[in-house]
């Protein structure tokens, strides 16, 4: 500013002159707060409060700005940067910018800022004080109720934290146990799978051999005698390039069906082998049974835990895995029994396994199922541990003030959308018109100011706006009796702002500051 630049250097040499004024007390100290009265002692000179200049005392409040910091004109609008003190008797004394003095607008409740204008300011300090007291009392009462709830939340949070710790220990113990069990089951599985594989391979080998023999036997089909069934040969059998299914059934199949022979019977060697395997597994099982008695009761706990587990996501995942297993089984069965895919003229399907192989497979299947079951348990427990650890990592306030939010979602209905925030997880904008949901952010961090970090939280990296940034949501908390979304708006495109009432944001200091009904000074 121009003003300040010349003041610094210019007003050293000044010609003194007397300024006539009426009531010095009243005018000279106007706008000076009592705390600064001593600096405005009516001596010969006045030192600007920033020390930049010393001026004759008559220059104070003479409606001309001399000090760079505006301190010589606390009671006029002469300085652009001065401060005027409103005494506001009956209410709180406040300091306002001195450029509000004499602007025709009553800024002080005692109207003292408009002493020089024709504007009539009603003294509103008394009503203001009453209103302010009422508001403060209402606020205090609100915080009191809120703080009680907040304490409850905090207490529950402490309990939840220790329960979580206990639970974690249990789960870790269980994990160790079932991981051991898994190892055993794996051994058993391998034990059962080895003879099964052997039998299967044998079966396959036998089948391969027989196929070759079969074709040799049916030389009437292999007209060129090369042990290969060629397209030309097929043509000669069918009498055409192609026939439909009915024709094949009636004429062609009839013609060639007699050429096929039955498969050979399983050997006695295989039967002896089966007995051996059954024995070995029984023995191993016996040993394992002895081992499991030491960790009895684990299963019951496990069930209890899964009951508690209502997390949508994990539920979903469980479901998926079940489905996958099911499919897996089905596919195996389909391959093993498939006889009806008439895509080739060769029937490539192996004949049924002999009974002994079947028995071996049954045993192996059993071992596999048991292994899978334990493996699933291991996964489950691991996931639970992971979830619990994640929960423990979530910052729910230094004393768990915001712990009640865990796993909760809150909705806010607006004209076009419902806004849903799932605390510490994500926030969505759900269209009421039936459009698809839009994620406006994933849990990011507490983003309040350094002295009040838990005032705000942010959900970031939501769906990207067309031609714009990723959406985000900032929640600002204020004290309230219930957890409730008060307002959602979009002050800037794609940056949403939510106002949220919760007892968790209530302040004990406010709750316990008694508002004196007749106290005049705050």
């Amino acid at each position: 500013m121009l003003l300040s630049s010349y003041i610094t250097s210019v007003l050293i040499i000044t010609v003194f002159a007397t300024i006539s004024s009426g009531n010095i007390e009243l005018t000279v100290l106007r706008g000076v707060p009592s705390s600064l009265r001593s600096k405005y002692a009516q001596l010969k000179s006045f030192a600007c409060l920033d020390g930049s200049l010393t001026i004759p005392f008559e220059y104070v409040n003479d409606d001309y700005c001399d000090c760079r910091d505006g301190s010589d004109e606390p009671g006029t609008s002469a300085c652009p940067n001065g401060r005027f003190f409103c005494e506001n008797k009956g209410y709180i004394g406040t300091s306002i910018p001195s450029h509000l003095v004499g602007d025709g607008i009553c800024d002080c409740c005692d109207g003292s800022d408009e002493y020089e204008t024709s504007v009539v300011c009603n003294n509103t300090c008394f009503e203001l004080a009453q209103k302010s007291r009422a508001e403060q009392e209402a606020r205090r009462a609100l915080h009191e109720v809120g703080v009680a709830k907040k304490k409850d939340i905090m207490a529950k949070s402490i309990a939840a934290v220790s329960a979580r710790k206990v639970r974690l220990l249990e789960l870790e113990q269980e994990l160790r146990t079932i991981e051991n069990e898994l190892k055993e089951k794996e051994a058993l599985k391998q034990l059962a799978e080895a003879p099964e594989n052997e039998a299967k391979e044998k079966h396959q080998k036998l089948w391969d051999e027989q196929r070759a023999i079969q074709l040799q036997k049916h030389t009437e089909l292999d007209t060129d005698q090369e042990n290969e069934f060629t397209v030309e040969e097929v043509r000669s059998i069918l009498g055409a390039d192609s026939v439909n299914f009915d024709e094949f059934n009636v004429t062609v199949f009839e013609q060639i069906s007699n050429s096929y022979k039955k498969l050979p019977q399983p050997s006695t060697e295989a039967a002896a082998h089966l007995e051996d395997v059954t024995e070995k597994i029984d023995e191993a099982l016996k040993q394992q049974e002895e081992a499991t008695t030491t960790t009895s009761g684990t299963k019951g706990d496990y069930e209890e835990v899964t009951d508690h587990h209502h997390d949508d996501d994990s539920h979903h995942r469980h479901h998926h895995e079940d489905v996958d297993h099911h499919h897996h089984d089905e596919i195996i069965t389909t391959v093993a029994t498939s006889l009806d895919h008439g895509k080739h003229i060769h029937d490539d399907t192996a004949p049924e396994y002999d009974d002994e192989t079947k028995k071996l497979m049954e045993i192996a299947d059993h071992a596999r199922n048991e292994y899978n079951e334990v493996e699933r348990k291991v996964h489950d427990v691991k996931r639970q541990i992971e979830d619990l650890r994640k929960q423990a990592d979530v910052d729910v306030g230094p004393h768990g003030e915001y712990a009640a939010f865990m796993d909760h979602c809150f909705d806010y209905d607006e004209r076009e959308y419902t806004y849903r925030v799932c605390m510490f997880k994500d926030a969505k904008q759900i269209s009421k018109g039936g459009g698809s949901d839009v994620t406006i952010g994933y849990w990011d961090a507490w983003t309040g100011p350094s002295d009040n970090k838990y005032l705000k939280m942010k959900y970031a990296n939501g769906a990207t706006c067309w031609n714009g940034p990723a959406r985000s949501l900032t929640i600002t908390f204020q004290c309230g009796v219930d957890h409730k979304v008060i307002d959602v708006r979009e002050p800037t495109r794609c940056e949403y702002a939510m106002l949220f009432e919760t007892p968790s944001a209530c302040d004990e200091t406010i709750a316990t500051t008694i508002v004196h009904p007749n106290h005049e000074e705050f």
Partner: protein
Amino acid sequence: MKNILHLVHYIVVLFVLNIPSIENVDRSNFKTCEQSGFCRRQRKYKPDRSSYEIDLNTIKIVKSGHLRCLLLDNTKSHVKFKLDIFTLEHNSLRVKINERNPIRRRYEVKHSLVGEPKLVDMNITNLDGNQIQGSFGKAARFLLHVKPFRLDLFTNDMFVMNVNSKHLFNFEHYRKKTHEHATVGFFWMNAAEGWIDVNHNKNLFSTATKPITDNIEIPEVTTHWMFESGIFDGFFFMGPTPRDIFKQYTTITGAAPLPPLWAIAYHQCRWNYIDEDDVRGVLNGFEQHQIPLDVIWLDIEHTNGKRYFTWDLKKFPNPEKLQNDIAFYRRKLVTISDPHIKKDDAYHIYSEAKARGYFVKTKDGQDYEGSCWPGSSMWLDFFNPDISQWYSQRYLLENYKGSTENLFLWNDMNEPSVFNGPEITFPKDLVHHGGWEDREVHNLYGMLQHMSTFQGLVNRSHGHIRPFLLTRSFFAGSQRTAAVWTGDNSAQWSHLKVTVPMLLSLSVTGFGFIGADVGGFFSNPDPKLLVRWYQAAAYQPFYREHAHIDTTRREPWLFGNDNTRLIRQSIEARYTYLPYWYTLFYKQERQGVPPMLPLWANFPKDKNTFKTEDSFMIGNGLLVYPVADADINQISVYFPGENTIWYDLRTFNPYKGSETVLINVNMESIPAYQLGGVIIPRRLRKRRSSMIALNDPITLIVTLDRYLEAKGELYMDDGYTYDYRRKRQLVHRRFIFKNNELRSKSLDTSSKFVTEAWIERIIVLGYPKNPNKVIINSGDKHATPLHSYQAATHTLVIRRPGPLVTSDWTLTIS
């Protein structure tokens, strides 16, 4: 250098819709000359010799100042034309050429001129049978060549420009490089699609048509005007000074009127302030951060589904209360009202206009339907005076529900913008009132809308309160009723830079109340750019922050304390200069001189100023070099004028004229210099809004020239009514510093205005020595105010001289 010299010296007064900002416009939306049939043909048409001749026998003086004759095309069609030459007051000349018996009637532009231009007598002499000379006014003369037709214009016996007869719409302009320096202007009045080729080539027409026989190389500008329809109607303004041109042009088309005081203060806008809470929140922000503010704006989202004259009552349930609250600090609200009317039978404006047949028609006589913000829309046919009147009545308080006298207007999208139209506007074959096709009248549409809005606002207060309204589309004459902004710019340094030449182009063509969106409309400015933009625009006529709906919030306090402080300082600086700005706007109304000027307008003899695009002047006293680069700590400042002195207003350092100086800058810097010889009135006190400061005291900044002299003016009134015109309630003072005396006298003795405003401080820069005594006399009263002197900067400060602004006084320094 020579090329540039005449380019700048010669002002082409031309009007193009919404001068596009450099990089934002998708050019593919618009035709090129090659894609326009008539333009392509015209460009190619270059006969060796003109086929047009004057029929000498037909020459007659219709009345004093009006000569008429027939113009024949002797080659092909033998079409006959009427040629009318009008000699006008203020060294101006008008030439009209129209077909004598047109097959198809040709449109003559209405609404652009203030009225019929005043004629002055012409003295005709037939020189040699091939030339007719007419002299008029003080020193103006035209020479009409008969065969081929050509018209040469002279002022003070110096040739300034001509109309040549290469073919009918081909002009050539020459200017002799002289020491006298003349500025000329040409105004081509035509509302149709047009193309103008501008060439500045020394050799282009160096032979046959050269009107002056000496061998001095003549710098010249030739322009080739190609318009689709209408008539030839050209005005020639023969200067000789830039200020003469402003006067000549605004005599014809009207001067921009004095805006309300608050309208030249700071405006806060955004697409969109969401609801009442948002508006109040922003207003509170200005209070909290102690930033002055006068106007807050609401863009299209405040309406009920882009139905203008309505409110989205969920967001703005109580607009009257909102406006009253805004007015509590004497601030104003501006709302938007575009010309497209949503097609919706339940919308009262639409249903009434539909029933009355008020919409623009297709060639088949159906109501034309196009797409704009509200979706399917129709457009009012403002060419019909009944429709214009009906439209203006929509702005009356009883018709515009929720509006109060504190609400003012913004007409956007009025080219008009039609999302699904050819070149994003009306099809050319739409039919307006009177049966005129859009191709004839297109460029008038926007002006007719805002003229109608203006009339509505005048009528709203029964002619008592000055309207304010902003328009995007404009034509010659728009300046009489609306402020103009440069449209949708972008948050780029190059766009900040280009504001200067863009605003200067508008200024010299009569649009004085102009601005560009601070910060850039599209995308997000980095804080540095935003600050620099606030600083630059603080010294430009219309000062408004505006941002696109997709940008992040950018209210002044959102970029940290330092930037908030810098922005606050810029806005505060603007407010300190409001008394000066207001005086300049008053002078514009009276004399047609725009407040923001190119350097050459004040220094027409200084060739170095002719190409200047990075700086500008406010009035004749303030030179501004906005910093428009991201990372620079030095700028090169040219101080124009021989023997001038310029004072840096931060350091009080003086600089000599005709010199270029490297000046160090930091983020605080808004390089601005006051010319020695000028007195500028300022208000160094701070207030919330301009209207609150109306009676605050004034500081006079006197910067002395080398003769230790200076002069200046101050204009004041109530800031918002027409009482300054109707009741002559105004103060217009002249300050003259000469012979160690500073005098204040009235420039308008018949005026009367009561104000408590007084002179609280006089700062004299360039005063050679510490005086013994300062005495002030006013009538029979006299006083001895205190003073102080700083020898290092030759600065004299007179403390509380104390006279009322309205009084005569003399201050004597001894």
